[in-house]
């Protein structure tokens, strides 16, 4: 393989692998920027993937054909948001430890979704969906030399959607009143309160947005990558998204970059075995590369990642 070929293989694969992480990471960003830690991203992705597949299968059965996946993703957004209420109620209203509540959410998501799958289909995993989201070459753009094959050929539309979302979220968080209020609630909820901002409401919105985005992330994973749902469809992607969030320093564009970086490392770990230079490297090095690189990056040039100041603490009016 020549270098261009390798790039043409690795870069689209990286973007493709990154899309669910980007979306989920953005979800985590909303929650954590509002001051609520969200370890439950993994569980929310599980619910999203579950919804994505079950709804697609059902709609396919009803003859919706190609539009099934899109409707399913929409459903995943809503169910994800609804499911995140579990975390919101526990950690905001009931003042539960946010990490604990997130852990519980993860357990619940896997248990509940597989339980329901058994109930609905009588078995531990679903069938494969018929109408997936498939790759395409962007007309015209894919013919541009170099850039075309790298960024506009063999792409999933969902990858573009994810990247677009990252930019939109960046704008929303840093340039709109909503963003300012969201961040203020995560940094100093009492200050926000004295300025007439409803801290509890903002945090609910933050957590539910995280559910919506992580649900979408899970659904995207399911309809592009896995094609069916079982208890092992989502294993660790939510945690990787969390890592991308921290790695990206709670900044939407940072999340985008971190997720792409993870995607690239992952793509290399798979493709590397067939790249002449890397072929003789024991596979373990390539397999662990994304994780090792992340650690090195954090220790080396990214340095201290400082989260929103009030993160993890329930807001109790009038406490000091």
């Amino acid at each position: 393989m020549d270098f261009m070929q390798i790039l043409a293989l690795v870069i689209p694969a990286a973007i493709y692998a990154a899309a669910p992480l980007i979306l989920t990471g953005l979800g985590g960003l909303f929650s954590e920027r509002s001051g609520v830690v969200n370890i439950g991203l993994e569980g929310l992705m599980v619910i999203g993937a579950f919804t994505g597949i079950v709804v697609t299968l059902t709609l396919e059965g009803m003859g919706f054909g190609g539009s099934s996946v899109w409707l399913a993703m929409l459903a995943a957004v809503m169910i994800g948001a609804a499911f995140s209420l579990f975390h919101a109620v526990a950690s905001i209203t009931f003042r539960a430890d946010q990490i604990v509540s997130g852990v519980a959410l993860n357990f619940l998501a896997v248990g509940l979704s597989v339980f329901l799958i058994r109930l609905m289909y009588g078995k531990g995993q679903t069938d494969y969906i018929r109408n997936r989201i498939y790759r395409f070459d962007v007309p015209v753009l894919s013919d541009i030399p170099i850039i075309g094959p790298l960024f506009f050929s063999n792409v999933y539309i969902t990858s573009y959607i994810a990247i677009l979302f990252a930019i939109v979220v960046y704008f929303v968080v840093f340039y709109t009143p909503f963003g300012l209020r969201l961040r203020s609630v995560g940094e100093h909820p009492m200050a926000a309160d004295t300025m007439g901002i409803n801290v509890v409401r903002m945090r609910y919105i933050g957590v539910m947005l995280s559910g919506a985005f992580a649900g979408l992330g899970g659904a995207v994973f399911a309809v592009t990558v896995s094609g069916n749902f079982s208890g092992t469809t989502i294993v660790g992607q939510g945690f990787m998204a969390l890592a991308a969030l921290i790695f990206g320093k709670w900044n939407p564009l940072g999340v985008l970059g971190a997720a792409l970086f993870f995607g690239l490392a992952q793509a290399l770990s798979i493709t590397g075995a067939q790249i002449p230079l890397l072929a003789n490297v024991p596979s373990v090095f390539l397999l662990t590369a994304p994780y090792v690189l992340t650690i090195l990056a954090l220790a080396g040039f990214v340095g201290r990642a400082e989260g929103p100041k009030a993160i993890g603490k329930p807001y109790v009016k009038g406490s000091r």
Partner: protein
Amino acid sequence: MKKLLPKNKLISLAVPLIAVLLGILIGAIVMLFTGYNPVLGYSALLAGIFSDTYYIGETIRTMTPLILSGLAVAFAFRTGLFNIGVEGQVIVGWLASVYVGIVLELPKLIHLPVAILAGALAGALWGFIPGILKARFQVHEVIVTIMMNYIALYTANYLIRAFLLVPGERTEAISKSASLASPFLQSLTDYSRLHYGFIVALLGCVVMWFILWKTSKGFELRAVGFNQHASQYSGMNVKKNIVLAMVISGGFAGVAGAMEGLGTYGYMSILSGFTGVGFDGIAVALLGANTGVGVLLASFLFGGLQIGALNMQSKAGVPVELIDIVIALIIFFVASSYIIRWVMNRIKKEGI
């Protein structure tokens, strides 16, 4: 004030109990709505824990690594750290203990402790890395430990495959001299896989309590966990203590892995995914309020539910996932203890 104290203690005890009851109750409602008979389901579950010495043996065996991984998480919590990396530390501890169990030839009295120690050291090493990164570079331990889990999984698989593989996708069995397995305990429990590891786990609870509350090192570790600035001001070496805390936490986790390697299995397989022992440890620690006794009780609950669920599936047809739901709900209610306390106080007030 004095008079209130026992009452408060009572509430503290009642909260986890109520949480467990609520979790089980909602589990029953779920069963009812999904067409299963909750009475049948739960009696099968209970029977699957208590009805036979075999089940009791299996429950204790399941508890053993859970206790230790729970202690690992709890220890880190107590020192202000969140060790999500217990899973990875369990894996490397498992591998190291098995390796020592295979390659060394020593009398049991030495071999067994050395093998357990090897597990502890490997886990400790795996905890050392996030510890030193946190201490030196202020890298968030949560991500590093998540990453370390994957590294442990792939590395252990690679090492087994490259150096230790025998047919069956696993390492060869450890020598008898390194084994925790006990024909006596097995025959006592109708061939369950109960092994002497549970003694190690019980010791673990004592060790954790002792280190944290009885030693001056534990004093430092807790102080650093609560307030690094004050600890530094009072002359403690904050960095060293962070590293030490992660090392000890990892050590507990490594021993949990050794329990699997030297006790339950006697070898290590190539893992197709995480063992779950580490992640369950998070739940166990939380439910156990990060105390030794609490961890012990919580892992009994978790171990029992997991073993009983098998019987529930086979006898009452209820999918094992129901138990995951129940466990999740229990964690949820424990975490929301504020609301339970609030309701209890309300009831009490109105009652008077």
